C-alpha cells in the first residue's frame, strides 16, 4: 500500500506541496490522528482537512547514534523530535536541527520547514524543526 492509498493520503499530498494539513471532525471538532475516514468520538463521517502553521512544541525526543537499516540518508548522530503541533495537539515525528547536540527540552517551542528524506523507494517529505 502506498501512502497515497491510506486515510492519511491528503497529509502526504499536502506535505509534498509544501503545506501541513491535518484532519478534524466537522461535527464535533475533534482532531483525528492517525487519520481516519470517520470520527471515533461522535461517529460522524465528515472529516475536514485543515491547513496548520508549522509551529509546535517538543513532546519528547531521541538522538540516534547507531546505523539502523533504512537510515542511510541521515548523518549520525541525528535528532528526532515528537512535535506537538500548535492549536491541535496532534503529535508528528520530525527531524530536529541539532548541529551542536544540545539536548532539547520538553515543551520547547519549534518552528518548521518542509524537507525530504531519500529512501530506497524514493523521496519522502518530512518536517525539519528548529528551536525558536
Amino acid at each position, binding site marked *: 500500500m502506498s501512502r497515497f492509498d491510506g486515510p492519511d493520503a491528503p497529509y502526504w499530498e499536502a506535505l509534498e506541496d509544501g503545506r501541513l494539513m491535518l484532519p478534524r471532525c466537522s461535527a464535533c471538532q475533534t482532531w483525528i490522528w492517525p487519520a481516519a475516514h470517520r470520527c471515533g468520538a461522535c461517529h460522524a463521517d465528515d472529516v475536514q482537512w485543515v491547513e496548520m502553521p508549522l509551529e509546535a512544541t517538543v*513532546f519528547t525526543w531521541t538522538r540516534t547514534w547507531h546505523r539502523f537499516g533504512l537510515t542511510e540518508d541521515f548523518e549520525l548522530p541525528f535528532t528526532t523530535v515528537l512535535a506537538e503541533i500548535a492549536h491541535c495537539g496532534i503529535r508528528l515525528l520530525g527531524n530536529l536541527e541539532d548541529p551542536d547536540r544540545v539536548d532539547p527540552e520538553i515543551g520547547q517551542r519549534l518552528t518548521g520547514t518542509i524537507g525530504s528524506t531519500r529512501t530506497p523507494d524514493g523521496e519522502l517529505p518530512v518536517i525539519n524543526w528548529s528551536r525558536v
Partner: protein
Amino acid sequence: MTHPLYGSTAIAGVGLRQHKRGHSPLPERSLLVEAVIDACEDAGFDPADVDGFVSYGDDKNEPVRLMPELGTKELRWSASVWGGGGGGIAGAFGVAAGAILSGQAKAVVIFRALVEGASGRMSAAVMAHHLNDHLLATGMTSPAQLCALRANRLFHHHGVDPAIVEDLVRASYHHGSRNPEAVSYGKEFDIDALRQSRMIAEPFRLFDCSRENDGAGALLMVSADLAETLAKPPVYMLGCAQGAQAGWGDLLENDDEALFATAGMRSIARRLYEETRLTPADIDVVQLYENFDAQGVMSLIDHGFCTYENAAEVIRFDNLIADGGALPVNTSGGNLAQGFIHGIGLPIEAVRQLRGESSNPVPGARTCLLAGGPGAPTVSSAIFANEVL
C-alpha cells in the same frame, strides 16, 4: 464468583533450546520440534497427543507444519495473538486456556521459535510489522528508537531518575551469572560495562537493550485436572489479560498523554488483579519482559509495584534479587542476561521458579507474574501459581 480462568488450567511441561544468534545447530522448525518434545517429556505426555498450538509475535511456524515430525494425531486448534512484538506473549496462555476450557483442544503448546537464518533479525521483523512512511521519513526504523522516545519522556517529564534502570540491569545479570543456561552465566557484571557501552538511541546504550538469540521455547498447557495426573507438579494459571485500553495502541505516537510514558499495561494489570482477586502484594516473583530496561521500569509501574514518584525506592538491586528481595525480578536473567528468544524464556522461568527448579530460587514462592512485552500496541500479562490459592 471465581473467574473461569482461575486455576482451571496448568502448565505441565516446558522445553527451551537456546543458542547464540546465528549458531543454531538445527533449522528453526527442527529446533522448535525439539523444544516441543522436551516440554512433553518434562510432563510425561505423548507429543502425538498434543492437539493445539498458540504463538505470538508473527511466529512463522504454522503449527500444521509441525505435525509430521511430532507425529500429531489430529490438530484441533491453532491460533496466534496479534502483534509484531512481544506484547502478546502472556495472552497466548489465555488463548490456549480458552481452547482447553471450551473443549476445543485438550493439550495445547504455547511456543515461539526464532533462528536468524529462517526468520531474520527479530528487531527487523518487529519493525517490518510496524514500519510506515512517517517512520521512514524520520529515520525511526527500529524499536529501540521508538522506545527511546518514551524513555526520555519518563525521565525528563515524569522525573524518574534515569539511573534507576541500572539496578534492574544489575539484578538481571546477577541472576544470569548463576544460571547455566544464560548467556551471562559465570560472568561478573560491572555496571561500567553498561555506562560505557556505545550509545544506540538516547537514552539507550547497548546494554540497555535486550539482544537476540537463536532458539525455541515450548510450554505444554492442559486442564488442571489432567495436569495433576502428569509427571511434574502443575503450575496453575490464575489469570490472564490481553488487549489495550482506549488511548493506547497503534496510534503513531499519539497515545493519551497520561499513557505515553507507560508500558500500556495499566488496564491489563487492573483486569488481571480484579479477576484473580490478587494485588501486587500477593505476587512473590515477577518475570518481566524488558525489550529495553526503561520499558521494564514502566511495566513495573503499570503493574502497581511502584509509581513515578517512588520508583527509585522500589527498583533497587537488593530488592530485585532472589536472595532476600521483596520483589525478585527475572530470576533466570531475563531477556537482558539469560537470552532473548522473543521472551519465551520468561514463562519457562516462571514455571521453573514455581516448581523450585530455578537457578535462583525464591524461598516459598507461590505466585509469579508474567508481564508481557511492554510498549507494544497489544499487551498482555498473566499470573501463575503452584497452588490454587
